[in-house]
């Protein structure tokens, strides 16, 4: 069974008299454990598609299923539950909680999931070390650089090992070494735990890690091909 199934997704935005096509009859299937990149210029619909799959945005029409469950038919509470337990998000902006330290930001979701304090702490320290933030656990976002904040956001998304990670430009503020390290970690999680990754990016270096590349333009899929990853 496909991890993600999208059938004829449409999402339009009204901007004055003009209608912007966020998603224009998009259909695609992504297998469980895939490592997929969404590419395309700004406004091509990558973020809209990620938001729709994650249940953050309502569609005008179409069907989305994750592991056979119709996301587009779920209520608010069920959607929140799905996002909490099954999906990890990495946003274009880092979107960390400014009053919490790096560790507390990573622990936050686990806390709501009901993970015990000691385990939360242990897992947060480990994942922050893995993304290269050892020794910076108690720093607040304002005390971290843009790249470091993005790594905290990535750590927050993957610390609970969700079934699906939706990442929107996760490496936008990372240097090459950090990018390689992060993508290697994504790939490792993908291989070891069969976590499905759907990554929207402009970056060719990120795309080279993907085993499938989906190109978008004007809300439509214009290219969808398998490739040999790095």
């Amino acid at each position: 069974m496909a991890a993600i199934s999208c059938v004829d997704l449409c999402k339009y935005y009204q901007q004055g008299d003009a209608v912007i096509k966020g998603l224009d009859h998009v259909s695609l299937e992504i297998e469980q454990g895939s490592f997929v990149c969404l590419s395309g210029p700004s406004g091509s619909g990558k973020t809209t598609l990620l938001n729709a799959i994650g249940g953050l945005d309502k569609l005008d029409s179409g069907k989305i299923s994750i592991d056979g469950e119709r996301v587009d038919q779920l209520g608010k509470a069920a959607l929140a539950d799905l996002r909490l337990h099954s999906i990890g998000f990495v946003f274009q902006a880092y979107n960390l909680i400014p009053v919490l330290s790096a560790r507390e930001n990573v622990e936050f979701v686990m806390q709501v999931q009901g993970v015990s304090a000691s385990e939360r702490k242990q897992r947060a320290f480990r994942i922050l070390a893995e993304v290269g933030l050892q020794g910076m656990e108690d720093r607040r976002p304002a005390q971290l650089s843009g790249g470091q904040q993005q790594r905290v956001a990535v750590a927050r998304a993957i610390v609970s090992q969700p079934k699906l990670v939706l990442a929107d430009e996760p490496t936008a503020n990372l240097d090459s070494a950090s990018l390689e390290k992060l993508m290697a970690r994504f790939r490792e999680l993908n291989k070891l735990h069969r976590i499905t990754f759907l990554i929207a990016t402009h970056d060719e270096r990120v795309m080279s890690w993907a085993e499938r590349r989906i190109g978008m333009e004007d809300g439509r899929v214009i290219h969808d091909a398998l490739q040999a990853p790095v």
Partner: protein
Amino acid sequence: MRASIGLSFRLAWRNIWRQKRRTWLTALAMIFSNMLLVFMIALQLGSYDMMIENSLRIFSGQMQIQHEGYHESQKMRLAVDDISLLAAEIRTQFPAAKVAARAFAFALVSSEGRSFAMQIAGVEPEQEAGISTLPGLLESGRYLAGSDAAEMVIGSIAARNLGVATGDELTFLGTGKDGSFAAAVVTVVGVFDSGATELDRGLAEIPLAYFQDVFSMGGSGHVVAVSVPDLRRVPAMLKSLQGVAGSKNSLLVLDWDVLMPGLKQAIQADMTSAWFMYAVLIVLVAFSVLNTQLMSVLERTREFGVIMALGIMPRQLALLVLLETFLMALLGLLLGVLLGGLVASYFSHAGFAYPGMEELTDKFNLPSVMYPKVSLVSLLMGPVVVFVFCLLAAIYPSLKLYSLRPVAAMRAV
């Protein structure tokens, strides 16, 4: 938020200090209003105690032993036998208490040219000063001296109405306990001015033994008035007196609440009007909290959008906003109670007076300073109401979170 309270508290506490100046301004509004409420309520309760004490001190006493039904009907035949002996027994059993026996009758009191209906009270002159302030409120003459002398003290308005002064004679005419004709001629030995119109116009006192003789009372009377040094000891004393009264037939012990229902009503009316004023203060503070929390929610729209995207329900975010308000209101409550308590405690020892108060209180033989009453009620009643209203004020900003949609919220600036 579901599993650990610790991180939620930390998050809420840090959130409220994001805008230090705004939080302090809101907290200061709470602290100031709480401080003011604590002091005002303590002063109000202190003044009520003073008002009760002084109202009861004028004549009625804090408690009275009466025959069943006398309080309602004031019938002469509903008398307490051997009333002086009963008063003496209570005096012996409770040395700290002030005790005075009294008898009452209505009579037509006449001077040379005028007549008025008045209440005649037979009192024990040597005991009366312990219960009543009337002996100390004489504007002319002296108080009653002998227990069976044909003398009388009357109120200043009655003296004016009857056209008499100290040394003049009055005749009174009434009905004795046995239905016989009761009449006597007495000399006015003193005129009192209590400031209480009802007493000054309608009450005359004569010695109890003389009263018993004129009104054919034998050794009986109608009331044993009892007072203790501290109003807070009244309930305990009431129980003790009930023990004493219970051993006699058909006697009741009544406290000031029953004896002077108007006093309690006056206090309740004053309290109600004061609370209207307090309500304005409380509503202003609540609006200040509403403004702060609304601003706080609006400027964090983007952050709330992200948190919702991570799988947190609006309900949990609303609880976070309520928790933030709870902590801010708790800060206001603790500091307000502390400062208000200190101010009230200081004045409860030093006394509180305002310009012009002395003249007013002198006229009514009242103390010239008021003493705020510091108690759990005065410390907490106002601040707890402020606290509750602050929490209520945070409901609207919290409810706004229910209408947030993650994507739209994350796009907010």
